[in-house]
């Protein structure tokens, strides 16, 4: 499990420090899906980036992040390098731009495997084809370039890359935004399958509450750098307690029921 405790993050700006996370605590268990729901600017992405220490230099970080007995914030570069991808991988927001346009998809995924798993390039490419097939892409896509893939295909390729080193934890930042609804449903099902199959812990950040509820085991609602409500999704949905969660659930119910002044 990844245990985040009393985490505070302050970004450095021209006008001084700005608090993005205000002492929040969260557990990300293995074999389950943890969804973090919040509106834009609530600090969801910052939370994910903190876990992999991807925050910009000069950022103040306080608190602790313990990933199965290892202290992430205390890791030196080498340990951190082994932690990233091997134990904890990230699917970035907007997979569209997370591949370099000048290398084939296969080479980029294989590069990760070679670097983090020490496989030969032949073995790595073979594994890459298998990975692509697992996420529903033809193996022949290894030689395709990012611009030759649709948005949904790129998202699948980003997932293939994220699971390429068999991580224990997968962090996903808005993994389905900018995708069509049908593609979104396909990707969501794929993520749920991978969690069940590999026993990974998935921590997914999204602004879409119904989407989060459709696959998560644990739900955390964020607002202004804090987790305002957390627990089992069915209980939160049944009886939201924080005013922000109440508003969120109400506004979605209203839209689904079509009860808007027409």
């Amino acid at each position, binding site marked *: 499990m990844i245990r985040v405790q009393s985490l505070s993050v302050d970004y450095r700006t021209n006008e001084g420090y700005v608090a993005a996370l205000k002492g929040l605590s969260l557990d990300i268990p293995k074999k389950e899906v943890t969804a973090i729901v919040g*509106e*834009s*600017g609530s600090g969801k992405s910052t939370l994910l980036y903190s876990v992999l220490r991807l925050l910009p230099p000069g950022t103040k970080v306080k608190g602790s992040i313990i990933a199965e007995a290892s202290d992430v914030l205390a890791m030196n570069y080498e340990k951190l390098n082994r932690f990233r991808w091997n134990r904890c991988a990230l699917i970035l927001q907007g997979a569209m731009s997370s591949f370099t346009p000048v290398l084939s998809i296969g080479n980029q995924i294989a590069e990760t495997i070679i670097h983090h798993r020490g496989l030969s390039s032949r073995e790595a490419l073979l594994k890459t084809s298998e990975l692509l097939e697992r996420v529903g892409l033809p193996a022949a896509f290894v030689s395709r370039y990012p611009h030759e893939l649709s*948005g949904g295909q790129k998202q699948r390729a980003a997932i293939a890359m994220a699971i390429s080193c068999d991580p224990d934890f997968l962090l996903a930042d808005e993994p389905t935004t900018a995708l*069509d*609804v*049908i593609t*979104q*449903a*396909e990707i*969501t*099902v794929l993520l*749920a399958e991978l969690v069940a199959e590999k026993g990974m812990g998935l921590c997914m950040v999204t*602004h*879409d*509450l*119904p*989407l989060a*509820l*459709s*696959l998560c085991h644990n739900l955390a609602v964020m607002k202004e750098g804090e987790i305002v409500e957390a627990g089992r999704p069915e209980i939160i*949905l049944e009886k939201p307690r924080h005013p922000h969660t109440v*508003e*969120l*659930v109400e*506004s*979605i*119910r*209203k*839209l*689904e029921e*079509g*009860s*808007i*002044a*027409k």
Partner: protein
Amino acid sequence: MNTPVMSLQNVVVSFFSHGKRVEALRGISLDVASGECLALIGESGSGKTTALRAGLALLPLSGGRAALFGEDLRQVSKGRRVELRRRCGYIPQDPFGCLPPTVTALETVAEPALLQSSRNGKREVFEKSMALLAECGLGEKRIVESKVSTSLSGGQRQRVSIARALAADPALILADEPTSMQDASNRGKILEILLKRVNRGAAMVLTTHDLYLAAAAANLGIVLYHGHIVERGPTKALLAEGLHPYTRALAQALPRLGKKAARPPVAEKTEDFGPLACPFAPRCPERFERCRQAPPLVNLSPGRDAACWRS
């Protein structure tokens, strides 16, 4: 029935891309009258935005007819076309590309109204723009006076773009995914602001990929796929019991409170059915031989049309 505010008849729009002719709209017809809201539903690439732009004659038609306020846009003079367009408020999809970069939010909203009415005092226009910004939740002094390009988030820019489109009291509102960048708690509010104008007599065409949003906003909806109208009917019916397999796939793929993630009912995209086939055939779970020939859009029950051999 009174004259439709916007009307498309058998509109065909084609683009050239990589030396190939791509048809973005393949003969679509739609009307929207004063006090009505029509939802154009479909995924990216289905032709929703092109249909809005064709309605304003912002792109050349390869076939068919587009009319605003009963006047054929190809028959009228350029000056008249501009006059007709000025009665329309267009909310483009991308709030990053559509707003002037160097002026403040307030000036951005006031600009179209200032251009149009010399008799209205400048002051009055600014007061009204202020009220509109406040209505869209952007009334804070800091926001009103900041430059759109440097200090506002995507969601805020989109609301500036909505206020701007409403500033000159348009008779027709064309809203291209107007809530795409809004947080859940804001989407309903934005919809209410737009529908208030419809209740006061404006016509509106709204594009979305979200059938719930369509049903909340509009009584009537059109489902587009690859530039074809595949179904037309009351939005509530489209959501609950679509006649076309694509409409049903769209409805089932939408996340909904209390529904677990499930594989959407679409087939593996494989076989090429040829250029004459039903556009949805390559992904349709119910395809059969007859789908090699595209089905026409036919009336199946009062107010409901679909283009599918099976329905």
